[in-house]
């Protein structure tokens, strides 16, 4: 399973269990849609840290990185690249 699908699956299970995973477009605005709020954001970050074994610095925790599934995926890839470079 690719990372985008994993992220989608987590978002659906956690925030909208009544929705089929395939209904969630990777460019859907999760923040404007109210799917993920500030509390939800913390849950997403905690999951990302465990699932992808990446460290998330609180200071870079802007909501923009979590607006869509695509944005979250991009964030994960970047974080991975950074930790590999270390």
């Amino acid at each position, binding site marked *: 399973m690719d990372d985008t699908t994993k992220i989608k699956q987590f978002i659906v299970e956690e925030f909208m269990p009544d*929705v089929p995973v395939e*209904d969630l477009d990777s460019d859907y*605005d999760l923040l*404007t849609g*109210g799917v993920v709020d*500030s509390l939800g954001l913390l849950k997403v970050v905690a999951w990302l840290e465990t699932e992808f074994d990446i460290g998330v610095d609180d200071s870079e925790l802007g909501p923009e990185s979590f607006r869509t599934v695509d944005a979250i995926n991009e964030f994960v890839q970047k974080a991975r690249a950074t930790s590999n470079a270390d």
Partner: protein
Amino acid sequence: MTSSLADGFTEHARSRPAAPALIWQAEAISYGELDEMRTSAGADLARLDLPLDRPVGIRAKKSPEAIALVLACLTARRPFLLPSIELASDTLEALFAQAGASRVLTPDLQPDGSVGVQAAEVADDGVCEWPPASTDVSFMLTTSGSTGLPKIVPLAPGAVEHFIAWAAERFDIRPGATVANYAPLNFDLCLLDIWTTLTCGGCVALVDQDRATNGGYLAALLADHEVNVVQAVPMLYRLLIDVAREDGRTFPDVRHVLTTGDKMPASTLQELPGLFPNARFYNIYGCTETNDSLMHELLLNDGEVPANIPIGQPLPDVDARIQTEDGEVVEGDGVGELLVWTPFQTQGYLKSALNDGKFATYPNAAGDDRRYFRTGDIVRRHEDGSITLEGRSDFYVKVRGARVSTQVVEQAIQEHPDVIEVAVVAVPDELAGARLHALVRREPDSKLNSLSLRKHCTSRLARTEMPSSIEIETDPLPKTSTGKIDRKRCLPREQGAQANG
């Protein structure tokens, strides 16, 4: 020209004793028979020899004998408190004590058809607020207060008569007319359904409270007894629509359809002309304190199904005032709290300390001082003068510092064609102050889910108005005994015990 309720009833019992007064459990009770029930209840009441300067309490479920007992009290000019029997017994005790009731009366139907009166003592440990400033009182109703003890609302006989005169003329209530009564006996709506009808010689088709959610029973009552006037909360219409969907029936005898008490969903509204092909439709706005205050006639047959139905224009002789939080009058279009003065209204709560902040005197448009009632409803007056409801001032909650009306959110969700009904409740939240939870009932054959509903809401709602959680079901939402959505029972399950909505 107004006539007193008891006199009007007596006149019809004398001149047309065989005419039907009530339909109860598919049987007609004539004016003559109901008059005999009233007389027997009155005789039993007189035997109790209760002090004349004190009210009585009536603890009774809707029934012909309960109606006879109310008529007996009206005839004897005895004020009476008629609370909901659904209230907890401690609450009822406290209300009867506050009203200064000498006894609590319950009607007792005898095998020979006469009505006896059982009288219970009132606990005297409560605080008695009787008498009010004006003791010219007939009915004492209670508000459906969501917190604390319900407030007792005394009504003067003149106020009731004034209302009856308006309602009878407006909805053609006279001999030969049949009016359905859906509301429980303690409701202000009964002033129209039951008490106007009995004053004016019409027939009341009584809905049995125990079968108020049985669509088949309700449809049969309306059809079999050729009901002409229906006044009810939207739930009744929803139940009838569901029945009609099965058997294709219509109600051609109904001339006036009144909806009140709750916001009518557009999905229900658009099916009404098919259900009632010969009716006129009205949205009525009122409070227990003021009785009916504003009315809007819906021209549904012309295809008008507005998303937000206006509450209409003030009734004749009614004054409406819209004011901002600072008490500034809103002229023209704008938003503010609605204050009304009606000729039907109470002089104030029985417990006069409760009047502070709820009643306020201002001059009306003609310069006459009026004692306005603050409804607590936030309304918008549009450029064309129509008034729509924005929400209850007490439905406003703070979400992340922003003032949000849960009713605005409900309205937006309700606009989705697959939504039958919705309740949005505020759940206390340590971080946000409150977060919103939406409980939605969708059409059974729709695929509506929380994501498609969010997409629908995105263009309609501010970010702070977007519910944090959405639960979608096909089961009807929890309702109170009066058919309104019971928002306390719409909280997410894990929150039900601790949150107070």
